[in-house]
């Protein structure tokens, strides 16, 4: 190491110890932040639009004849880690399947919105929608029955 290099490294060490150059650099970065676009949404005027694939509240799908797709196989109920799905199966009026659910309730307060039910479903009958901001005044209102799930 030449004397010049040694002097330079000593000078750099001094600058680091001085703390001020680093502080000034940091402050310029902080100031630059002021002029960046803001991420806050002014809520009542601007509403958050969830991205594609967002896991919100469930719905039950229907096929092209307007019949529900669900065959009451209980796969979703089994897959659910929060145990919020309850299905009571009954005989099917249609010839292409054995059972349909007579009762299909999801407790939205227990649900953790993991999407396991959607993945487990062999008939592509249950789906998570991007709806995330539904409000209720009682706990009972948040237990969705089959009609509510089909109508969405």
């Amino acid at each position, binding site marked *: 190491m030449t004397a010049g290099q040694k002097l330079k490294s000593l000078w750099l060490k001094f600058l680091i110890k001085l703390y001020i150059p680093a*502080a000034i650099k*940091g402050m310029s970065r902080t100031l630059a932040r002021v002029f*960046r676009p*803001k*991420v*806050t949404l002014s809520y009542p005027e601007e509403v958050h639009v969830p991205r594609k694939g967002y896991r919100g509240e469930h719905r039950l799908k229907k096929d092209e004849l307007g019949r529900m797709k669900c065959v009451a196989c209980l796969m979703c109920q089994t897959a659910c880690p929060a145990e919020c799905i309850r299905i009571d199966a009954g005989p099917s009026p249609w010839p292409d399947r054995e059972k349909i659910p007579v009762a299909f309730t999801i407790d939205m307060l227990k649900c953790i919105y993991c999407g396991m039910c959607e993945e487990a479903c062999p008939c592509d009958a249950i789906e998570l929608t991007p709806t995330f901001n539904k409000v209720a005044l009682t706990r009972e209102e948040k237990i969705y029955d089959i009609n509510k799930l089909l109508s969405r």
Partner: protein
Amino acid sequence: MATQLTRLLEMPLVQGLIKIGFVIGFFVLALVPLMVIIERRLSAWMQGRLGPNRVDLPWLGRLGGILPSGLGHPLADAIKLLFKEEIIPEGADKFLFCAGPLLVLIPPALGMIVIPFGNQIGDAPLQVADLGVGILFTMSVLSVAVYGLAFGGWASNNKYSLLGGLRASAQLVSYELALGLSIIAAVMLTAATSPDGSGTINPRIMVDLQSRGIQYWNVFGGGDWRLAPFGILGFILFFVSALAENNRLPFDLPECEAELVGGYHTEYSSMKFSVFMMGEYVGMILMSSLMVTFFLGGWSFPGITDPKNHGLFAGLLSVAVFVAKIMAILVFYVVIRWTLPRFKYNQLMNLGWKRLVPLALANVLAIAAVGVLTSSGGGK
């Protein structure tokens, strides 16, 4: 009628009252809420948020879009705090508990009276009291504020508050030394560079000396380029100790809102708490006024103010320049707040006693040495 008014305005008492009214009404009552909202909005912007922008001024609104939104928030905060329940904890020393916030608010407000916040208008200097010992007065009054923090912590009958009060008073006492020594550096600069070779501790004369031009500002060595490094060093030392004196980040250990239970004002609620807050902000305003007065040329700015023009408009312009300088420093405070992490207590004490105090002493000696060796004082 008009002659009566001018005669009234010529009375020293009336002039004094107007100036006191301006200092209390503007620097304490108007600038503090303004600073609060500026700090909140700026902090938000630095963090990518929008900040409080919903409450506008009552009746005025945004004056048709001229004012930024959110100016009404400090007012709403004040109303909310006024109507909150005031709790005095059981076993608290009631007198000292109530005296604490006042002892934090009054000293910095009192210190403002020696600050020359503008040039003369007619014969009247824009300064409440033209004290010859102005700097000593401010320093002595400022040191009273330590009692406010210590009383607040002790009278709360809460061991965490007591620890917070001790922490606060230890910090304030330590940094007052560095603060005083860096002010001495400014005084030495005036002594080394004033035309008649005599130093001054009168803030008004100090500003008059600096108002000759930007190169005469004490931060740039007071007119002698050989002294400029010492002026800059003195300014940085003063700035760092002022941050510590005001309990601002990176030295906000007296409070530590999040992790050390709020320090000395843990038990304070309602208006007493907001008086603490106000005292803190007045302290910030006083510190930046001192900085501007001692190092940054006071109310003068070359090209904008003319020290020889004693008209009404020129006087008001000089006040505006002074306020603009203060605001620039206060914004700088906010930038520092969101840039630097907090010091640990041992680091704080190390910095204060092992770095700032020796550096400030060395600075004073260096200025004296350079001043004597070059005898740049014009009088000799």
